């Protein structure tokens, strides 16, 4: 047991049965669809979250012939969300070609939103509560909500409650010019005031992640994504939208030199140790993704493909507020717990999908897992968790190249990974196994294991 309250499950407790062994049925990934991701202010500058989510849904419906189907449930969410979008997912369903009798709910867990919808809906399928579902997520950094100041908001609400003219005038007199300035949404952590990039810069420095290593990871992301497009890998994972048929952020022709020429944008107070640039950090992005989940029976009855099963998932959180761990380091703790529960090690994983919030996030995570001291003192292991085989990491690119519309990233990863796993298939009776890791604001992290079907 770890000494700091991060309870890593030791081998003695790892015999806890997996979903399959408990008699629960499987939840399988049938396929996915997303719209190409666009840089904020780009091709989707005028598209709302509802527009994009509906488009992603309709592409999925078209791919799998789900017109007029009443699905068990659709769950999706957005991180940057207008108050008018209180029922975003249901509204998107109503605007789609699905049966209007398909229920839906919104979910929000920062950047883990998309993955958490997959986890939650898979669990419902495993429990037999539903037979089919669509998980998804959407985000627009372009069409973000703009909020009025607290002062103005209070005045407006009080005015609404006022009954007489003098009362109204008295309330209005409280207004000050500064109250009229709108507030743009910030990505700063509410408890620290630091942006995500500044938080990561601290972690990057702590784990001594080099600029070269970050740029190399970014370069691989672009190259892998471009190669996947060329191979037609995304032909049945993406439906074009608003004139875009490939991710707008992808730079197939970028080079180590170009990436090395960029100036640091985060951690500049670190001076020479500042390593994080626009090239090795994800840009603000617009986009939406969806994943079709089902029970075996439901998929079979409709002659639908079955790519992978959603085996299990684990959430974690870290105390970044007091500086105990880096903001984006929760998956570092979630993964060992999940692996232990299934008697697995990093060597048992065929594909790693570690969300590239920043290149340094991935590299800090890998560094922590390779650290003997950290493994013993923080993860409660005998030593280091282990090394991730880099040839198995983000093989078709990840967020640095594709972009990162916060809530849409989980769906992007799950659909791509499921297709990869299905293509690899079983080896000597052992299914291909994939690990998804997504970090999120608030010190959150959600990780999951998928297996080929």
């Amino acid at each position, binding site marked *: 047991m770890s000494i700091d309250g991060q309870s890593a499950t030791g081998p003695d407790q790892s015999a806890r049965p997996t979903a399959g062994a408990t008699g629960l049925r499987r939840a399988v990934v049938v396929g996915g669809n997303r719209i190409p991701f666009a840089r904020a202010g780009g091709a989707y500058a005028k598209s709302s979250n509802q527009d994009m989510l509906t*488009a992603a849904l*309709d*592409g999925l*419906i*078209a*791919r*799998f*012939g789900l*017109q*007029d189907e009443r699905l068990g449930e659709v769950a999706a969410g957005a991180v940057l969300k207008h108050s008018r979008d209180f029922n975003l997912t249901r509204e998107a369903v109503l605007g789609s*070609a699905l049966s209007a009798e398909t229920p839906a709910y919104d979910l929000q867990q920062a950047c883990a939103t998309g993955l958490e919808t997959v986890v939650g809906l898979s669990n419902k399928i495993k429990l037999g509560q539903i037979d089919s579902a669509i998980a998804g997520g959407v985000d627009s950094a372009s069409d973000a909500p703009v909020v009025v100041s607290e002062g103005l908001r209070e005045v407006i609400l009080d005015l609404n409650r006022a009954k007489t003219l003098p009362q109204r005038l008295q309330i209005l007199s409280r207004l000050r010019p500064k109250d009229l300035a709108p507030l743009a949404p910030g990505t700063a952590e509410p408890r620290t005031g630091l942006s995500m990039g500044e938080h990561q810069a601290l972690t990057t420095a702590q784990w001594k992640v080099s600029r070269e290593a970050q740029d190399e990871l970014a370069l691989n992301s672009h190259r892998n994504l471009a190669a996947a497009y060329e191979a*037609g890998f*995304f*032909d*049945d994972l*993406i*439906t*074009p*939208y608003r004139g875009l*048929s490939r991710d707008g952020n992808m730079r197939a022709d970028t080079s180590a030199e170009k990436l090395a020429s960029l100036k640091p944008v985060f951690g500049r107070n670190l001076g020479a140790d500042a390593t994080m640039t626009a090239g090795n950090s994800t840009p603000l992005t617009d986009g939406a993704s969806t994943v079709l989940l089902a029970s075996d029976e439901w998929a079979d009855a409709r*002659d*639908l*493909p079955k790519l992978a099963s959603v085996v299990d998932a684990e959430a974690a959180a870290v105390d970044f507020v007091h500086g105990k761990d880096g903001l984006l380091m929760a998956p570092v703790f979630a993964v060992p717990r999940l692996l232990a529960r299934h008697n697995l090690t990093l060597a048992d994983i065929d594909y790693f999908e570690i969300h590239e919030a920043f290149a340094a996030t991935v590299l800090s995570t890998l560094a922590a897992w390779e650290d003997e001291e950290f493994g013993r003192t923080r993860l409660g292991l005998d030593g280091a968790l282990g090394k991730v085989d880099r040839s198995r990491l983000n093989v078709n690119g990840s967020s640095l190249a594709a972009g990162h519309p916060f809530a849409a990233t989980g769906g992007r990863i799950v659909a791509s990974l499921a297709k990869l796993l299905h293509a690899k298939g079983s080896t000597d009776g052992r299914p291909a196994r994939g690990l998804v890791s997504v970090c999120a604001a608030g010190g959150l992290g959600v990780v999951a294991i998928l297996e080929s079907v």
Partner: protein
Amino acid sequence: MADKYTQLVNQGLGKNVAKRLGLPQPALLRRYHPGQPLIPGPVVIQGDSAAADKLGTELLSWDLDIRRHAVPGEQLGAIILVLDEVERPEDLGRTVLSAAASLRDLAPSGRVLTVSRPAAEAVSPAAAAARQGIDGLLRSLAKELRAGATGNGILLAEGVDITSPSALGAVRFFLSGRSAFVDGQFLKISDAGGTLPQDADIPLAGKVAVVTGAARGIGAQIARTLHRDGATLVVVDLPAAGDHLAAVANEVKGTALQLDITRADAGQRIIDHAVQRHGRLDIVIHNAGITRDKLLANMDPARWDSVININIAAQLRINEALLASEHFSQSPRIVTVASTSGIAGNRGQTNYAASKGGVMGMVRATAPLLAEAGGTINAVAPGFIETEMTARIPLAIRETARRLNSLKQGGQPADVAETIAFLASDSAGGISGEVLRVCGQNLVGA
């Protein structure tokens, strides 16, 4: 929708002005909608062969109003000239002239239909002359018809009876609004194959059909028409056209397959998708095609090669996969889109015409290969069709092009789609290796 000029001259003031000035007066064509009467008015059958009697009996069973003699002054839906037994040119006159008096009574969008035998199969020079004479007669008569009426001919191969499924299927097609823009054309019935549908309103019920190039234009309309006729659709187009394709798939309640048809494995991917998702594959419509126009003197390899590759080479590769597949063996149907450019030629389209000529050659040579499985392959050759593509032609050229046919208007995507749906149906099982033009009897070409 008819073009703006056609709309204008079909109402009030515009109609009057066009008439007084002697301007072209294209008619609003009768087009098919499920449930509408097959033909608006009685059908006169002229001719004294046994086939004429048999056809009359058959059409009576379709609840049509059949006449063997026209009553002058009574508006007619169609006139059918049965000339299958003519032996000498002199034999034509009696039947043709007895029909002549009825022509003025033909209703708007009425039909003239000839039934005869192919000249190439005649046993004597005189019989060949008589049969070939019908060709010239019909093509001229079609040009004399007015108000959206059309004339077409059915050629019964030796030994094929007028009551064979495809002969009757062709009669139904030509009488109906499905053939609105088919004019001055002959369709050969090769054999007695095919079966008539249980329900004429959904002749493609139970069939799984693939349409390439289905994201927009004629391809999207083909998908809609096949869906209306009862088929389950797989719509195919380039990944980059996926958003439009998804919209079409959702409209016709089929599945979208984003696929570049020039990929080496395109045929297999189409078969796999259809069989895995829908359990079978019955119909493939090769509609995907591009134009990259340039005078040959200015042609570059990229323009030439892309047109050849997409318009014909890809079809050949896909057909090879289809022919080799056990899943494409139960009366399968291939219908491909040729073009009048491939028949008559078109300046600036050497690459396109080569590819479309190639399509017609492919159709003829593939027909015997498919026959073993009871399958057929045919082509439609559209003339000027009102699409997004032709809307980009400069106005003056466009306006000339669309009036250069007997119906004095461009066709609609639906006209091409209706013809394809007919050729894809079970009732067209006796028709193979044919090219049917959907061109309003365009003045260029054959």
